[in-house]
């Protein structure tokens, strides 16, 4: 069976859990975004969050990042309860959050700048990540001179360049073309494989989630809890072009699709 389904029980020993979210609730004024949500993110794995628009995925990510305070519940990163942002986590923002007054290289190097890395060194690192997101030649451009997808890639390069253990990616590929998206997926997977980084990944593409994830958490609509956790058997070995016709793959996609749809309708 390609799917192993668990009902939010810890999968592995706590040592292997990079991020553990326990009983988080969050209310904005009248809107209740999260209610009593618990979820574990195993170390060195890529976990996708799938859920309807406005269900609270960004909210959850910001709570894990330490940017928002939950109304109740705790978040542990590497076994420690967090109380704010830390060097172990890097964030890719859904709305990019680029500094309009800084050019591309300064934006990308900003995380390193804040870590006190010398200018020449951080620019060399930034340069590397700018190249890896395909923006070579735009180092001196300002955000308002870039297309939507290019801005998104700047935000991605910035988060990658700080080399954090946990990466929180909020729809990081929503504005890039298929080709670029696939390249980035490979890059992420390489990071998971080689450097055993932990990714928490928000996406709306079921196909993408199935292809890249070790674990997919399906969230309910507002107020959000985890409805189910799916661990797709790895399709990573197979070539991207082939899995599209792989019945096993298509089955999982259909299954997820069915379960997402069930409570939306």
């Amino acid at each position, binding site marked *: 069976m390609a799917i192993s389904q668990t009902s939010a029980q810890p999968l592995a020993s706590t040592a292997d859990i990079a991020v553990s979210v326990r009983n988080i609730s969050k209310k904005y004024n009248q809107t209740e975004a999260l209610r009593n949500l618990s979820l574990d993110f195993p170390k060195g794995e890529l976990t996708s969050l799938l859920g309807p628009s406005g269900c609270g995925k960004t909210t959850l990510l910001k709570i894990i990042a330490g940017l928002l305070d939950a109304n109740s519940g705790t978040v542990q990163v590497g076994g420690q309860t967090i109380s704010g942002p830390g060097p172990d986590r890097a964030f890719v923002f859904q709305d990019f*959050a680029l*500094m309009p*007054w*800084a050019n591309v290289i300064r934006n990308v190097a900003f*995380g390193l700048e804040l870590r006190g890395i010398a200018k020449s060194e951080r620019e060399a690192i930034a340069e590397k990540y700018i190249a890896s997101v395909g923006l070579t030649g735009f180092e001196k451009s300002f955000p308002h001179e870039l297309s939507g997808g290019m801005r998104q890639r700047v935000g991605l390069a910035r988060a990658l360049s700080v080399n954090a253990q946990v990466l929180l990616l909020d729809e990081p590929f929503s504005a890039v073309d298929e080709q670029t998206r696939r390249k980035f997926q490979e890059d992420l997977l390489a990071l998971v494989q080689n450097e055993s980084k932990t990714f928490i990944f928000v996406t709306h593409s079921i196909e993408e989630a199935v292809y890249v994830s070790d674990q997919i958490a399906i969230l309910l609509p507002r107020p959000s809890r985890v409805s189910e956790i799916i661990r797709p058997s790895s399709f990573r070995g197979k070539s991207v072009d082939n899995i599209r016709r792989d019945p096993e793959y298509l089955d999982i996609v259909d299954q997820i699709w069915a379960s997402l749809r069930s409570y939306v309708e």
Partner: protein
Amino acid sequence: MSAVIVFSAWEIAGRVPISYSFPTFLESMAALAVITLDGSIFVAYAETLKPLVTGIAISGVLGVGIGLWVGLSEKFEWLFAPIFIVMQAAPLAALIPLLVMIYGIGLTSKVFVVCIMAMPVIVLNTASAVRNTPVSLKEMARSFLANDHEVLLKVIIPAASPIIFSGLRLGVSAGFIGAILSELKITPTGVGDIITFSRSIADYPTMYAAIFSIILLAVLFLNLLEKLENYLFEGNNRGYISD
């Protein structure tokens, strides 16, 4: 281009004449040439620049500093904003006797006049700009581990810079006026002395030459300020919507 319009308007106004104490542009320029050639204007500026430069430097640095503080801390705002409102609203003439009383008739008083003229608008504008920093950028900086100090320096100030600079622009030129005013109202020295003396002997071209020179200096300085702004926060300058 604009300068040509201004100067011809002045020349025409002087020619009409709109008032016997209002010389033409050319007369004033001739007078300016005279005081430049005999060097008296340089001696005068050596004197005037002392309170001017000190005052503007203090107002610029302290003004932005206090403005940031007032903008960031409610407590500080609660306590100190009224002072700057008073400073901004009080007619300077009312405060000069007080200054003379406390700081005498020397340089200190003049520096104070420059600061009273320049600082409030810088402080108040900076404070209101700081409050409008985009939250998403502050969040971003925090997530990349900026401490408060860095958020201030690397996000809040650049984000607020257009408004800070518009306050600086006004503050600095008010400082120039303040320097002259202090020389007119406390003790006439430097350029203020040229103005009062030529006025008392009804040598109006020289008086306007002196005033013109200080405006010129101020405008040059403002352009410099604009260059500095564009250099420091280049990307903030997104150009005009019209083009």
